[in-house]
């Protein structure tokens, strides 16, 4: 099954987003990661790389990211990792929920899950 990694500058935010998405997602493996490693705000590529390894069960990982350097650090982590992973260009919470649902499909592919995450960009709230 395609796994998910949620990257936020705040570890608390990443954990919370993963919790919300998990409500919708059945068995999907959702790994939260974030913070600067010292309790502060930030992202660390090594931590993201480790999260990719946890989330992957062989079918690859879709990565949801919040802002700015989270994107760059996720890119670096993917480059350093052997795991097949792609970043979704999507709002992090809505994208994670969409992706979590999509990943539960029996034939879900990495591309399909990313596409579903990115479809969250077009959802109006009002």
């Amino acid at each position: 099954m395609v796994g998910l990694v949620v990257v936020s500058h705040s570890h608390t935010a990443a954990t919370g987003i993963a919790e919300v998405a998990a409500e919708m997602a059945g068995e999907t493996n959702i790994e939260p990661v974030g913070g600067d490693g010292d309790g502060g705000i930030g992202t660390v590529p090594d931590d993201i790389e480790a999260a990719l390894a946890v989330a992957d069960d062989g079918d690859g990982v879709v990565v949801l990211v919040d802002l700015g350097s989270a994107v760059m650090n996720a890119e670096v982590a993917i480059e350093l990792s052997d795991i097949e992973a792609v970043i979704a260009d999507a709002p992090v919470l809505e994208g994670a929920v969409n992706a979590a649902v999509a990943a539960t499909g029996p034939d879900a592919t990495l591309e399909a899950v990313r596409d579903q995450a990115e479809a969250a960009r077009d959802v109006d709230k009002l």
Partner: protein
Amino acid sequence: MSPDSDAEAAVTAVENVAERIEAERERLTDLDSAIGDADHGGNMARGWQAAAEAVADLEDPDIETVVKTAGKTLLSEVGGASGPLYGGSLVFASAELTDGLTAESAVAFAETYLEKVQDRGDARVGDKTMVDALVPAVHTFKKSVETDDLPPLDALAKAVAAAERGVAFTVPIRASKGRASYLGWRSVGHQDPGATSTLYVMEELLATATAHLDREAPSADASSPTVPDAEASEE
């Protein structure tokens, strides 16, 4: 020059950069206070200090390992965008040094580094970022080595001069990338901190290379640089 001595010079270069960045910490912080979040000096000083310690601990490394280790350490220790931009690009470009340091591999390293910074940061010349120092420096270095046939040290010196002009160029322009871009016209008149730290790193590379080559071959003349030229290093 043996590969080991290249690695040794690379370790010294990282130590020199760490010292220089520490000395310029306040300056970088001041520049970043004007148009950013005032953390560039502290982040860079912490990252390079950790990198200097990490490369000093390597046992009998080659130059690729030294550069890669420095990059990986910067990745984990420097926060914000400077971590992936500096560290990630060093890790990636270090692969160009697998066969050691030559004028040719130095050009390849510089080009790959620049490419990675530009891809990752999606910035061009004129956006008021480190790219404004890097692009003229790398292009000058490449041209000096490949077209003008200058010895590597002279080529590096010209590249540093080009980076310096690039830093000056960031002062009057308006930022369109990174946090400074939120300031719009208010960013005009301020020197870019990332371009400035890039210049400091390059100046220390030049100083280290100069001292290194002097020590390695005190009798070498300008026409036979101790870094092997393209011909001598042809695979």
